[in-house]
């Protein structure tokens, strides 16, 4: 048998069904008597609900918050001192606080008719003043999103390692203000939920396009006052998540409540308009960064203020403060910096609530830090790569305790950057006429597989604990693995089978991985934070270990030796003088129990294994990226000509799938860098409501990204793996903007915001022209 375990680029077991249209996504599930929901959503960003006019014949077809008596509000929690926190009510009762907030649910046998009905429901809204930006929300006398707070500042944190000594030694100060715009996450399949009450089992069954079925069950039970055993949550095939589907959506609560109330299946499918307006909830950070450096650009201290435009409510479970906490905890990045001071402000605005999007706050943090490093390099007149090499944590310093308190476990950051530079330099690019060319770099390090300690410190309701996996040996020796994480593109049906194969030597094609169903799966907080291969991979290995031990015991009994004498090799149980296959051992337990002693029969061949990294320590993945861009300085357009990433996620279970994760992350990061933005006007109206206005990059915008890998095993994880699901998305905004600024060096322009749309690029050039003209004027 060829190697099919850890390290094999096995073709994916998932592919066949998707290539033949046999996937089953939420919208593909049909149920008799099912009703579709269309929501009436607020057209105003801030208003009092005076009344809601329903059509007379609406009856049990239109529901508002007043009908949802007894449903508890969604209540996220936080341990951060002074954190003012308000969850979103499933439907607005007296007040709406962002455009798209739900006012009423309208039901009909199909969506078109539900929308017809929704058009007849007219909310009577009394307009209230709106704060639609950080500046508006923090202005003196600003209208309040939540009147009882007395402020729009929802959360404030401070950290100060003491920087005076470093500041005193520094000879160079560089300060920049850097903005990352608000985005929608845009999984290609929208969010959706379908609920029905199973009267036979006495169970509410909720199909949800979610990354975290057990978490959704936790939240539904809290809101609906049900016991966990009374609710089953099933995630079918999920068409992309990226964090958008790792949170509770109020629509899930409403649909579940409607199914209980009506005793009929009820379904909601988010459409693209809803997603781009009510779901425009990612990123939007502003950084004020000051680097204190020496003449060579060695950064001695970093002083930062981070403000997030966090929207009207706190999403469950992460709260609105997750971005600020993540960003401030990793802002110094892969660098060895001796002094760090940071203040974060999480600001409420009349916009959809801020939610964690792939890599959470790290694309913003990396963008801020890495553009600042380039600015430092310019200030000291050195090459930005050389300045980085001088500041990066050296391999010899690993494990390295960062000034933030985080422990970076392993890796060679400078080597990844040097390799990236060599790859970029090896290929020349022709910018074509009318364009300028530039190259930009960015390096990051990333906390993957978030630890229990980290979450307990923050106090949000997604405690990772020990991840569980069940391994069920079937009577014929085939294997079913059941896991609580949910695979929605990551290929876990393949990689987890490979891990079982690595331990047991079993052919992955005799392994099925079942996931996404609380009725089948062990409890899990789900798929997020680049955790699945670390946590669930470890749990699958632990379960497989247990199973292997049992199989060896059975074989040992049959071969009349001890279990220690039996080795598992390529699916064979090999003893001193004989061997048997796993299949034979499975058959003996299931069909020839009389051949085995009672103690070998008792516990069976269905086991659960638990796992977390040694000492609850998270592995840090990292990478260096480089972008080469062509900028048209008269039109402001940017083309990415070449993109290189050299990453290190430790041992790669399936290198092909790792490549896919990085490539996809980079493409999303290029979207953040150049295209994706939901602007709001000062009345809180979203201005990008279709893909006509919200540009998602296609193949035409994404170059043939080039990858290389380093493979430094994590000392703390099974097989030495580190998470890889998010990392690709972290560096592109920084690398692309650094490349643009490199291209524009002759113009004197410096861009400090993403996405780098033509308008922003030209504005940076205009500003440089105006500065030059002003200087000339002053000189005259």
């Amino acid at each position, binding site marked *: 048998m060829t190697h099919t375990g850890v390290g094999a680029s096995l073709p994916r077991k998932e592919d066949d069904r998707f290539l033949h249209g046999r996937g089953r996504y939420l919208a593909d599930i049909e149920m008799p008597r099912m009703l579709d929901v269309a929501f009436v959503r607020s057209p105003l960003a801030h208003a009092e609900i005076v009344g809601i006019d329903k059509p007379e014949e609406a009856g049990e077809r239109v529901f508002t918050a007043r009908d949802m008596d007894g449903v508890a509000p969604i209540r996220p929690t936080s341990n951060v001192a002074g954190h003012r926190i308000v969850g979103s009510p499933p439907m607005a009762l007296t007040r709406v606080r962002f455009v798209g907030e739900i006012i009423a649910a309208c039901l009909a046998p199909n969506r*078109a008719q539900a929308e017809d009905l929704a*058009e007849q429901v007219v909310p009577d809204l009394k307009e209230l003043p709106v704060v639609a930006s950080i500046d508006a929300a923090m202005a003196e006398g600003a209208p309040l999103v939540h009147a009882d707070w007395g402020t729009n500042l929802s959360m404030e944190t401070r950290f100060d390692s003491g920087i005076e000594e470093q500041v005193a030694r520094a000879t160079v100060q560089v300060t920049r203000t850097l903005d990352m715009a608000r985005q929608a996450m845009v999984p290609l399949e929208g969010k959706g939920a379908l609920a029905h009450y199973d009267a036979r089992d006495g169970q509410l069954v909720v199909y949800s396009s979610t990354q975290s079925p057990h978490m959704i069950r936790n939240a539904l039970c809290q809101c609906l006052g049900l016991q966990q055993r009374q609710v089953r949550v099933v995630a079918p095939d999920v068409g992309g998540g990226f964090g958008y589907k790792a949170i509770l959506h109020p629509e899930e609560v409403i649909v579940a409540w409607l199914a209980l109330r009506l005793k009929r299946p009820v379904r909601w499918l988010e459409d693209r308009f809803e997603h781009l307006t009510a779901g425009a909830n990612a990123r939007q950070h502003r950084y004020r960064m000051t680097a204190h450096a020496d003449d060579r650009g060695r950064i001695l201290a970093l002083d930062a203020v981070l403000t997030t435009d966090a929207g009207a409510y706190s999403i469950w479970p992460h709260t609105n403060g997750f971005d600020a906490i993540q960003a401030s905890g990793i802002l110094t990045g892969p660098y060895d910096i001796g002094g760090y001071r940071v203040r974060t402000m999480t600001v409420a605005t009349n916009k959809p609530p801020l939610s964690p999007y792939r890599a959470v706050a790290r694309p913003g943090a990396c963008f801020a830090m890495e553009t600042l490093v380039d600015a430092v390099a310019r200030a000291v007149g050195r090459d930005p790569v050389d300045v980085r090499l001088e500041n990066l944590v050296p391999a010899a310093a690993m494990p390295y305790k960062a000034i933030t308190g985080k422990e970076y476990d392993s890796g060679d950051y400078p080597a990844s950057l040097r390799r990236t530079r060599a790859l970029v330099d090896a290929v020349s690019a022709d910018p074509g006429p009318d364009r300028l060319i530039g190259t930009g770099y960015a390096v990051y390090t990333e906390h993957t597989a978030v630890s229990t300690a980290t979450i307990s410190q923050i106090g949000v309701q997604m405690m990772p604990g020990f991840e569980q996996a069940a391994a069920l040996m079937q009577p014929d020796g085939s294997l079913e693995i059941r896991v609580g994480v949910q695979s929605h593109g990551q290929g876990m049906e393949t990689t987890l089978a490979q891990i079982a194969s690595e331990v047991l030597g079993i052919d992955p094609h005799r392994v099925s991985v079942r996931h996404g169903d609380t009725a089948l799966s062990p409890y899990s907080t789900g798929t997020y934070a680049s955790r699945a291969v670390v946590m669930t991979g470890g749990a699958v290995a632990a379960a497989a270990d247990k199973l292997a031990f049992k199989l060896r015991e059975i074989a040992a009994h049959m071969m009349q030796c001890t279990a220690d004498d039996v080795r598992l090799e390529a699916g064979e149980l090999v003893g001193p003088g004989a061997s048997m296959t796993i299949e034979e051992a499975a058959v003996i337990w299931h069909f020839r129990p009389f051949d085995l002693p009672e103690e070998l029969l008792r516990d069976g061949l269905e086991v659960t294994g638990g796992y977390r990294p040694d000492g609850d320590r998270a592995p840090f993945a990292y990478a260096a990226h480089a972008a080469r861009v062509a900028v048209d300085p008269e*039109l402001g357009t940017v083309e990415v000509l070449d993109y290189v990433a050299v990453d290190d996620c430790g041992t790669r279970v399936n290198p092909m799938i790792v490549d896919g994760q990085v490539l996809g992350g980079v493409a999303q990061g290029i979207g953040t860098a150049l295209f994706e933005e939901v602007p709001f006007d000062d009345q809180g109206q979203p201005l990008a409501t279709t893909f006509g206005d919200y*540009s998602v990059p296609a193949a035409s*915008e994404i170059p043939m990204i080039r990858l290389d890998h380093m493979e430094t095993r994590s000392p703390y994880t099974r097989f030495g793996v580190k998470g890889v699901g998010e990392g690709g998305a972290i560096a592109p905004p920084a690398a692309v903007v650094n490349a643009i600024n490199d291209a524009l060096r002759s113009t004197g322009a410096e861009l400090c915001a993403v996405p780098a749309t*033509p308008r922003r690029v*030209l504005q940076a050039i205009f500003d440089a022209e105006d500065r030059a003209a002003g200087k000339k004027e002053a000189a005259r």
Partner: protein
Amino acid sequence: MKAPAFDYLRPATIAEAVAALAEGAGGARILAGGQSLVPMLNLRVAFAETLIDIGAIADLRAVVDEGETVLIGAGVTHATLEDGTIGDHWRGMPAFVARDIAYRAVRNRGTLGGSLCHADPAADWPVAMMALGATMLLAGPDGERALAAKDFSVDVFTTALEEDEMLTGIRLPKLSPSARWSYRKMRKKAGAFGEAIAAVVHDPARGFTRVVAGSSAVGGPCRLEALEGAVALGSLAAEAAIRTALAEREPDLDRYEMQIHATCLRRAMKEVSS
């Protein structure tokens, strides 16, 4: 995002379609390829009591070589123009323009006539047809009439079509072999509508030069005659002249909008002049 209810007709001839329009008395709309109208229906920003689907009318897909001109049926798709299967008498300009309209799957349904009637200010065909000197053929209850492209285009999303009229064809004058053209579009990503469009056609043998700009910012296609003299003389219009011409058309252009339009125009004129 599901379309509101409407009645649906699928006439087999232009006469039946025109009769249905009259019958609809303003509540009826023509459905051509539907690549703009159906999305707008799905978003419920467009409505109709009756949709008159002209997809079954074979005459609308006819292409007739009339000697000096070619009559292109309003129902000819972008993809047909892209592929050049109707013959090329315009030195490749329609195919070039078509190739960059949305995406192939959209071009396979979307039609030249539908795009002209929809009159999106950022659309390509209104600009290109004005630059090529097209004439629009309209059918109504009182028979046919012809309108020059510049008279057909009235305003943003507005044409000279009466509510009981439909566009049946586009008469396009052939270019001479010595003609030159340039079509420049600045857009945020492939397939997106233009942020700024400039079309220049210079045909000394036939004695005309046209410089046309288009986009939402300039309110749709507009001919900038003040710039045409320089192109005709083979010289370059001064940057200031370009900006003045644009400002005369649309005084409210901001610095960014002025810059991208002026750049597209300058490059297009340079390409034709060189």
